[in-house]
């Protein structure tokens, strides 16, 4: 811990990492709350794993074909949004086959990514950082992209708050009120996709789902309106990412995994705490 505090002043990479963690937490809290309330974490998981395809292809084009301007994160953005729209469309049209299609996309996205990564020099370390994140290697360019995505997600997530809320709670009713349910559902999933990309830089795509859903899940145990759930989820997410960085720095643990372990611990304590408190509440009712 002390090493961490001392290092913040001198280490530019650590400063970037902290900044990314804090910025990412905002989008994470807002969109994670929608995901938990609407119960679509499986869809978010599918989107997250499809980003590997985009990152693999982008990295191949960058290193082998020589498109120097194309970064893996750009590929991730594209792949995530395409995956969101395909999965969203399937979940609107073919309810009964939804899980099959999501699983298929989930695995195919990863397969494509691995194939392209295998065909690109420098196989090992990059794959690991995509899968499990490496917040300490976030470049300043990545930082700007993450910040831009964050602002975009936040603005749309709040401007259309009422519509998203209505579509998540009761899509049929929203449609009868003249709301274009398909449009808002796909927009919501696209914003989830962009949030997933932001979080991939923090914890990697395998761990994204935990960071997206656990803070909101903890928060919704205590808060009963969606905007309140969002605010508290943002705070929990910020605390977890900062604590993850701080605790992992000295012993040189992977920061992404440390962050998730903290989130999961907090979630466990919340559930157990509720179990202890809940019986008393039942008596009151």
């Amino acid at each position, binding site marked *: 811990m002390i090493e961490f505090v001392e290092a913040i002043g001198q280490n530019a990479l650590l400063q970037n990492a902290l900044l990314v963690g804090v910025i990412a937490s905002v989008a994470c809290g807002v969109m994670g709350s929608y995901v938990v309330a609407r119960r679509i974490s499986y869809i978010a998981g599918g989107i997250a794993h499809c980003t590997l395809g985009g990152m693999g292809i982008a990295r191949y084009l960058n290193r082998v074909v020589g498109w120097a301007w194309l970064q893996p994160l750009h590929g991730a953005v594209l792949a995530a949004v395409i995956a969101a729209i395909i999965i969203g469309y399937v979940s609107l049209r073919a309810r009964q086959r939804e899980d099959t299609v999501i699983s298929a996309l989930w695995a195919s996205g990863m397969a494509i990514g691995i194939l392209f990564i295998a065909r690109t020099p420098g196989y090992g370390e990059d794959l690991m950082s995509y899968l499990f994140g490496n917040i300490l290697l976030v470049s300043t360019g990545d930082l700007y992209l993450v910040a831009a995505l964050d602002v975009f997600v936040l603005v749309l997530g709040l401007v259309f708050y*009422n519509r998203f809320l*209505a579509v998540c709670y*009761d899509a*049929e009713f*929203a449609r*009868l009120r003249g709301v274009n349910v398909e449009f808002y559902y796909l927009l919501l999933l696209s914003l989830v996709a962009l949030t997933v990309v932001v979080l991939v830089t923090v914890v990697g795509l395998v761990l994204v789902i935990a960071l997206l859903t656990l803070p909101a899940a903890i928060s919704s145990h205590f808060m009963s309106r969606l905007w309140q759930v969002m605010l508290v989820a943002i705070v929990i997410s910020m605390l977890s990412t900062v604590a993850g960085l701080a605790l992992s720095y000295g012993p040189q643990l992977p920061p992404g995994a440390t962050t998730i372990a903290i989130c999961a611990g907090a979630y466990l304590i919340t559930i157990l705490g509720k179990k202890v408190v809940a019986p008393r509440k039942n008596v009151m009712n």
Partner: protein
Amino acid sequence: MTESEWAIKFDEVSFAYDRETVVDGASFSIAHRDFVGIIGPNGGGKSTLVKLMLGVLKPQKGTIEVLGHTPHRACRRIGYMPQNSHLDPEFPVSALDVVLMGRLGITSAAGPYRPSDRQAAMHALDEVGLADLANRPLRALSGGQRQRVLIARALAGEPELLILDEPTANLDPAVQDDLYDQLRELNKTITVVIVSHDVGFVSLYFKTAICVSRKVHTHSTRDLTNQQVTDMYGREVRLIHRDNLETGKCCD
């Protein structure tokens, strides 16, 4: 806009899921400010009939006119309360949040609700007797209270036609009576259509009964006989008429 002759008009409407015909050649008209009960056995097509009125389902044959337009164009002028069962009771919203959803289509296209939306939503909550619980989380409300929140949501859009699917399903009899009193009050200005399984009490509450079991028949509830209802349900069903209830005897 000239007022149409009928609130709802079905002309030779048929609807089938895949090959199974659920509504078969339904023709009926509902007058403005009528108080209508849609009754019939489970699986007889009550909810299908409602979904046709709302434009959620499109008939394979026949035409439907609601408030002088196609159901699709009229649906924003309808206040609709679905069955409670498909909604997540743990969803993080307050009673007022839910009722405000009834203002969509009236309020601005993006951004927060307007003060006028909040007033209308509070007024609707007041009409169902829940104004005090406006800020209560949905998950802290009882089943009956949640039901009334959904009725308030239907009222918040200031509808000309109110369609309620099984509004009394979770209510105990006293609350049920209160609700029908409130609905009768609303019925002075708007048309009310209710899907109900309480067939026995049909004539206590409704002016007109639409009996649905594949075929659709309308009756004035005053003229509805035990035999007609029994034929529809395929078993003995007793009707309770208001006059009989008041004099303390059941009709036979």
